[in-house]
């Protein structure tokens, strides 16, 4: 098992360097430079422009810039945003909990609902419920979520007034950031009603972001469950006269969860991509919006290191899923 983990870890190193190279190259290939963007509607004269580029170290040859970058990384220095002059790490730390909170809420929504629906659909294969769930799942899977978000806002927030339009909490609640998770911070603060308010703000974005994972998980659970229910050990368990619930949950679901787990892993990247759109629609102050804006503003350090951090996160989650998968399935572990 340890050698399996070591082998997987070994694979991460070239991937990590590949990502640094890719992000470094990507942002520099984008035309336009940060100095002009910084100046906004005002325009710069060439001499001032050259001075500013020099101050920012952007006049050095590319390889030197890359070495600077790797050197800084090695020292744990992620640099400063060119726009705001705050460190990329601290910006990431303030924004990331919002994205994480949203993503976890979305996964919770997708996971619970998707697993339940998938299991029931598998058990009642061919029933109206099964067809209905699979139809809805496929529709959810085909949903342009930016449009879905707009529709939900129109209906629930604007027409019915049930949920707030945007943001993480009503700003009249004065919630000092402790953990960065609004749900937790609102409980820690002594503001009354803040938690419920934060929850209300979270519902729609989480539903929107969770829609596609929900569809995927429901479909995956159903098919994994069907597969497992055909297996010999399930048949044996049934034959032994175990209660149907015990067969389904202990023998069936536990084994069906393995493929579902990998889907969870694969969905992390998709979830972050979806977060970009969801955050845009709901004015959710997370990293998706931050990165898109930074690309627009040619904010090199933010794009480079922000994307790097996200990539590391994706790599890490997939690594953990890999390991879990290996734990659950010895055949994978011994494969070379």
């Amino acid at each position, binding site marked *: 098992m340890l050698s399996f983990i070591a082998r997987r870890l070994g694979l991460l190193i070239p*991937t990590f360097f590949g990502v640094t190279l890719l992000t470094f190259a990507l942002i520099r290939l984008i035309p336009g430079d940060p100095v002009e963007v910084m100046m906004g509607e005002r325009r710069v004269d060439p001499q001032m422009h050259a001075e500013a580029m020099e101050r920012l170290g952007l006049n050095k040859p590319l390889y030197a810039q890359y070495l600077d970058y790797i050197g800084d990384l090695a020292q744990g220095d992620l640099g400063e945003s060119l726009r705001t002059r705050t460190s990329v790490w601290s910006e990431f730390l303030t924004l990331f909990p919002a994205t994480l909170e949203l993503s976890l809420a979305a996964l919770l929504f997708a996971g619970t609902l998707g697993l339940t629906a998938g299991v029931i659909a598998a058990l009642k294969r061919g029933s109206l419920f099964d067809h209905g769930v699979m139809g809805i799942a496929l529709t959810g899977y*085909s949903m342009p979520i930016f*449009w879905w978000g707009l529709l939900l806002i129109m209906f629930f927030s604007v027409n019915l007034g049930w949920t707030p339009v945007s943001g993480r909490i009503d700003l009249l609640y004065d919630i000092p950031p402790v953990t960065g998770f609004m749900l937790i911070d609102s409980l820690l603060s002594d503001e009354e009603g803040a938690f419920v308010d934060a929850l209300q703000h979270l519902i729609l974005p989480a539903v929107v972001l969770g829609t596609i994972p929900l569809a995927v998980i429901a*479909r995956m659970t159903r098919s994994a469950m069907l597969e497992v229910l055909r297996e010999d050990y399930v048949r044996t368990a049934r034959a032994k006269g175990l209660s149907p619930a015990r067969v389904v949950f202990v023998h069936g679901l536990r084994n069906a969860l393995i493929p579902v787990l990998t889907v969870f892993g694969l969905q992390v990247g998709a979830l972050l991509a979806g977060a*970009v759109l969801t955050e*845009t629609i709901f004015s959710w102050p997370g990293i998706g919006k931050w*990165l898109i804006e930074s690309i627009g503003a040619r904010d090199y350090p933010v794009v480079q290191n922000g994307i790097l951090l996200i990539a590391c996160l994706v790599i890490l989650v997939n690594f953990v899923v890999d390991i879990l998968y290996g734990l659950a399935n010895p055949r994978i572990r011994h494969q070379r």
Partner: protein
Amino acid sequence: MNASTEVPVIDQSLLYPSPLKEFWQAFAHNKGAVAGLLFMLLVVFCALFAPWVAPYNPSEQFRDFLLTPPAWLEGGQAQFLLGTDELGRDLLSRLIHGARLSLMIGLASVLMSLIPGILLGLTAGFFPRLLGPSIMRLMDVMLALPSLLLAVAIVAILGPGLINTVIAIAIVSLPAYVRLTRAAVMGELHRDYVTASRLAGAGLLRLMFVTVLPNCMAPLIVQATLSFSSAILDAAALGFLGLGVQPPTPEWGTMLASARDYIERAWWVVSLPGLTILLSVLAINLMGDGLRDALDPKLKNAV
């Protein structure tokens, strides 16, 4: 051998049906897939004959009819069946012409990622020592970046536009094909027929393209359908972020993005393009499900 000249009475039910017929029967068995196919045929028809089907030129601006509601609503005009947009352009015509673009984007980006994806995947499968791992690491790197962010970055480099949207989507969906092809190739390489062909003296290229590749096609075709639909979604998402196909080209996502400002006053400019995207993508996915069931029974019930 039996040299009899009389025509034997053949029990039709014992005959192995032709692959095409078998495929069609399996496909037609899935009602959703047939519905999807019918809807897609309609979309393809609209796309092919857009100039004749659409009532107006999609870029013609009727400046006296800004944001006219659909015909059945109060204030609607019979001449603009689905209403007009913020510049007074006929929405129906734009949606019809948009079908062209979306199909083209889907098709082009699938081809542009399928072909290099297969080549890289085959290479990776056939050279498992040095080339293969390097290719796979490169794909890992690409997979580590969330697809939409990567696409945004690529569009930022190339500049927004139709072709660049296609390129960005193609690049982003490349790793899936490479991985899939490689996995399929690895699975086939140790089969007896490959060994036989190798012993018979088949060259590398022949082994790759004639012997192995055809046996890996089923999952690739299914993946191609899936990425066709996700290409349409991605293009729309890029358009929505203002980075996709540029106006006045009537791409569905771009239409949605510019209509977003009018959501409270003119629901139709937002709802209709979104609904069109949803229906088309759903239709393709339904077809994809049917294709998978028909082509690759092994994959049946997988996601």
